[in-house]
């Protein structure tokens, strides 16, 4: 058996909003075929952290980052790196489902490819179908690919957004509380999908739901005030945490 490979090596990330120092040097590794869950109280910097991984943080006016994130051996913050290429490799699903307005289901799923310059209709159709299948949405929408994406239910929209991300086929998929706006059944579907994605992708997911983290992740990192307090196998972190603060958080004594 080959050693699992650390696809993401995140080192000493500091992030600011203006003068506000939000991330204070957390470091983490994320391996191939792994689901890494990020938990922690509200405002501790989980969203900021995953937004540094696809360089979305710097899009906020006045925001700043320092540190290194190696993706497959290459620092995504190197001066010569093109953010567009980073984001093609590191996809993201957001908290609120956000299909593109005025675009059909087909156009939504193919948006990444089309707007990166891929034109061939047959190729697009093929990828749209396979992505929708991977996102377990194909059967529900295959007869209405020309209908607007915003016309779907919230849960379907979120799977559409997942399909849209999968269409670009990024090895890493970031998810920021992808189920927090969904009903329990849609949530269960997305969780199931995440577990299937593990076979081909690395998933980094922020969640407030500790049962969810326990169900779907291999590793969990506990964040507090912009730092990683503990990072371990999920089974160990939830049953036998080594830090007192982790224990207090997972037993619900604060946060």
């Amino acid at each position, binding site marked *: 058996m080959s050693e699992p490979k650390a696809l993401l090596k995140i080192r000493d990330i500091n992030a600011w909003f203006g003068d506000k120092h939000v991330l204070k040097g957390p470091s983490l590794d994320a391996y191939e075929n792994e689901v890494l869950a990020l938990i922690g109280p509200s405002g501790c910097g989980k969203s900021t952290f995953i937004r540094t991984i696809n360089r979305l943080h710097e899009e906020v006016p006045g925001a700043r980052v320092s540190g290194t994130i190696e993706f497959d051996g290459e620092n995504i913050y190197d001066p010569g790196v093109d953010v567009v290429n980073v*984001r*093609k490799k590191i996809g993201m699903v957001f908290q609120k489902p*956000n299909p593109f307005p005025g675009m059909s289901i087909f156009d939504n799923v193919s948006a990444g490819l089309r707007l990166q310059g891929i034109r061939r209709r047959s190729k697009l159709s093929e990828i749209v179908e396979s992505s929708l299948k991977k996102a377990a949405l194909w059967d529900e929408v295959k007869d209405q690919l020309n209908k607007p994406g915003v016309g779907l239910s919230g849960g379907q929209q979120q799977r559409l957004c997942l399909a849209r991300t999968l269409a670009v086929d990024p090895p890493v998929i970031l998810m920021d509380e992808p189920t927090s706006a969904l009903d329990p059944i849609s949530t269960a579907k997305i969780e199931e999908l995440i577990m299937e994605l593990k076979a081909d992708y690395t998933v980094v997911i922020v969640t407030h739901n500790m049962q969810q983290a326990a169900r779907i992740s291999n590793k969990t990192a506990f964040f507090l005030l912009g730092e990683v307090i503990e990072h371990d196998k999920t089974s160990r972190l939830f049953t036998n945490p080594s830090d007192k603060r982790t224990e207090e958080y997972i037993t619900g004594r604060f946060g």
Partner: protein
Amino acid sequence: MNLKAETGRDIRRKIYNKLALGMISVLGALAIMPMILIFVYILIEGIPALSLDFFLENPKPLGESGGGMANAIVGTVILVALSCLIGLPVGLGAGIFMAEYSYTKTSKLLRFTSDILTSVPSIIVGLFAYAVVVKPLKAYSAWAGGFALAVIMIPILARTTEEILKLIPHHIREAGLALGIPRWRVTMRIVFAGSFAGILTGIILSVARIAGETAPLLFTAFGNNFGFRGLGQPTASLPVQIYNYALSPYKEWHDQAWAASFILLVMVFIVNLLTRVVFKDQRGES
């Protein structure tokens, strides 16, 4: 428990409610009244004065009867087309910039100048166009008129475009960026295309606005009685023709002015209708 309206307070509240509603209805009716009156009046005065000649003939020299306003109809179309040629790219561009780079100094400056420019009286815009286009070229021209109208159009269009683009939530832009789509494509193909119906409405409204402008054309496009002779030549327009004819002492010219008013109204109306059709189409198919 008693839920029926019986106490004095309940009854008083109901009366106030009725009074307020009544007053609002009256005020509302007063507000639409002028519009209806204008419309009806122009219909009554304008339609009888219409004839085929009105559309096909240029004005006849003073003293001869008959003639039409073909020159002004064609002129207005040309002037509006010219101002769109100049005004659409600049206005839309400025609007997109203000929406997408909202916090930059350039955007703040653009917003400030747009707001000032919107409130500048249109006659002053005409003077400005006279100074920068008519004088250097030493001629009244369609260019000068189109330029003046564009100056009026640009700030209106820029601000409405900005407002409409800002209706697209920020997380939609981030979703585009997160897919590895370059920034300008996110702007054009997701944000701009996603608000296309709104943008189109903005364009139509600004076109409708400038189509009826008179003051900025008085000493820029000026006018002529012989039809279109080139973009560098004086060019007639419906509003200016209406203005000149209405001020004249001749009954026949007054009638033609009414007919021209009617046509101008119909043109603006058709443009408005067009948006609706396009708007529906767009919503229907997407």
